């Protein structure tokens, strides 16, 4: 039994001397509108991705396919089909589908067995039309915001099946499998003083952490650095994930981004927490007054530099619009293009001992009072 041995990254086949970075943010369940909290996470990841790309080979892995097998997605689909039957979701709004999701979360859970047909279909690339509709609407928001589309509508299955990943974990001495007695399967890092964490429930349902492991265990050895971006409330799970992936070779960086309170409260989307504030309405409101580039930069200034990684400030539409206004001024004053090396130097300043560029430091830097206006190529490469 290999126990927690650290392998070191697999050597790259092409001998190019650029570090390889994997950005692996947690995905948003495609069942509701994108709330301010979701937007914050997406904008952080996008700036990190686009700012790091000039300095490293970056893979941005964001696969909805990977997380469809979780109960909150499969259960929602089963609930829709059971409670509504044949329905054309092609003209449903995000809010309408979101309301159905809230109803699902309030309803009694279906037995695990009812979800099996859905779980099997997901492995073959099937997506429920309600979620396809959501992902199409999100794709339009991504385009409006200039967000890199990591394949929202693509079938991107994880590299390992559930049994295969449990076998790998067992080989690493990190799995406690009690299915023989009808019990759950746990991620077992108790040797390191971390508590047992359930991966598969006694009734056979895998949770999101099991899904993440199916995806990241086969990917991790091919990277020098793996950056995990996640909601701060999932910190203990991500500490565990970090330990597992570290044993496979790469340096693992955890970047926790807190949710955005609305009127002082962090409310979960499962209770319909968007209350009229979501990507669609925010983009429309900003676009009514400002041009596309100003909205793109302004959103990034607000959700990254103004809100910061923490959760101290509640969402404020007026401050968001101020940021968009500020963005319009910055764009008008943008400096001339520089050469590629100068851009790399500027981006590289916003790193510590890691390869990825820190979105908060980079974006905040644009707002410094006595700073020269940002160069047009920096804006185009990272923020527009």
């Amino acid at each position: 039994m290999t126990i927690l041995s650290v392998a070191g990254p697999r050597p790259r086949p092409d001998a190019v001397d650029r570090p390889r970075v994997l950005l692996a943010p947690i995905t948003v369940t495609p069942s509701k509108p994108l709330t301010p909290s979701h937007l914050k996470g997406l904008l952080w990841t996008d700036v990190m991705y686009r700012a790091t790309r000039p300095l490293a080979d970056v893979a941005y892995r964001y696969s909805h396919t990977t997380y469809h097998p979780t109960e909150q997605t499969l259960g929602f689909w089963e609930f829709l089909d059971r409670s509504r039957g044949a329905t054309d979701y092609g003209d449903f709004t995000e809010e309408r589908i979101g309301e159905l999701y809230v109803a699902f979360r309030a309803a009694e859970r279906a037995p695990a067995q009812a979800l099996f047909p859905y779980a099997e279909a997901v492995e073959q690339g099937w997506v429920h039309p309600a979620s396809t509709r959501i992902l199409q609407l999100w794709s339009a928001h991504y385009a409006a915001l200039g967000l890199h589309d990591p394949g929202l509508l693509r079938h991107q299955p994880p590299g390992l099946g559930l049994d295969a990943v449990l076998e790998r974990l067992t080989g690493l001495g990190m799995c406690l499998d009690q299915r023989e007695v009808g019990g759950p399967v746990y991620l077992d890092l108790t040797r390191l003083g971390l508590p047992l964490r359930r991966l598969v429930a006694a009734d056979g349902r895998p949770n999101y952490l099991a899904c993440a492991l199916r995806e990241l265990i086969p990917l991790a050895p091919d990277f020098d650095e793996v950056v995990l971006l996640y909601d701060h409330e999932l910190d203990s799970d991500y500490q565990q994930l970090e330990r597992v992936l570290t044993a496979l070779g790469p340096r693992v960086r955890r970047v926790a981004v807190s949710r955005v309170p609305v009127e002082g409260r962090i409310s979960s989307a499962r209770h319909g927490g968007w209350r009229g504030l979501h990507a669609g309405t925010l983009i429309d409101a900003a676009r009514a007054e400002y041009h596309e580039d100003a909205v793109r930069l302004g959103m990034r200034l607000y959700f990254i530099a103004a809100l910061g990684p923490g959760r101290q400030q509640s969402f404020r539409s007026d401050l968001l619009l101020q940021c968009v206004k500020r963005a319009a001024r910055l764009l008008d004053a943008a400096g001339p293009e520089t050469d590629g090396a100068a851009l790399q130097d500027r981006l590289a300043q916003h790193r510590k001992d890691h390869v990825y560029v820190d979105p908060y430091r980079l974006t905040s830097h644009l707002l410094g009072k006595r700073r020269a206006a940002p160069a047009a190529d920096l804006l185009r490469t990272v923020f527009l």
Partner: protein
Amino acid sequence: MTETVGPITQDSLRAQEAMRIRAARPDLAARHDLTSHDGLTAARSDITAEGDAGSLVTVVLRNFDLAQWVRDTCVFALGVGAQQAADWRTSFTRTVFLAGNPAQLRERFRFAHIAGDDSAAWTTPGPAALTFSLRRLLKLFDAPAGLPARPDTLVEIPDGHRRPGRPRARRDLYVATAECTISEALVHVNHVLAEAVLDGLVAPGDHLVVHQVPRIVGLPARLATVRVTTEKHLPGRLKAAAGLTEEALVA
């Protein structure tokens, strides 16, 4: 506690349960009328209400094989010191079963006994606070499956510190499997064995033959001790969940 149980009837089960409570906690026996079902229920709810007070053992289970676990449970109980045994007995040999892998834990925690294949580990009986950090790290052992069918199995308790001249005894251990999950069977068999060892019914070198039967009724031998529990579907009635027969000498 060495009176035999006699044929399994509601009266004999009630008497057996009353005897168990009286032996461990005379104060509870004084407080309740243990000859009645209601009195027994009240005494049990007092015991439950005491929660984590008293002495308890934590058992960490990686996987479960009844015969092997029976053997190791006896080995563990035989190694418990006299004072700790008395305290644990007063707490009705309270035991918490947790899911965990002893091989991953042995460097951080002290165990009184670890099974040879690392499938299970036992802490010394003591106050709950002593095992708080272990319990915080692990989860309750969740085994909703029934006991897998198996033929009668001979379990030989290792000789260890066998008293010279004590004849090697053989007893039959009956486990009722109908409507019983592995989690529940563990609790029942654990109490029967731990208390039998602490009361001197099982000694080093003894043999136990483990029988799985749907219900403990019409046994060929008399029981020396029995684990009494309530009927799930018959309110007010008791049943035998596990029992150990009187001893026979090993030829």
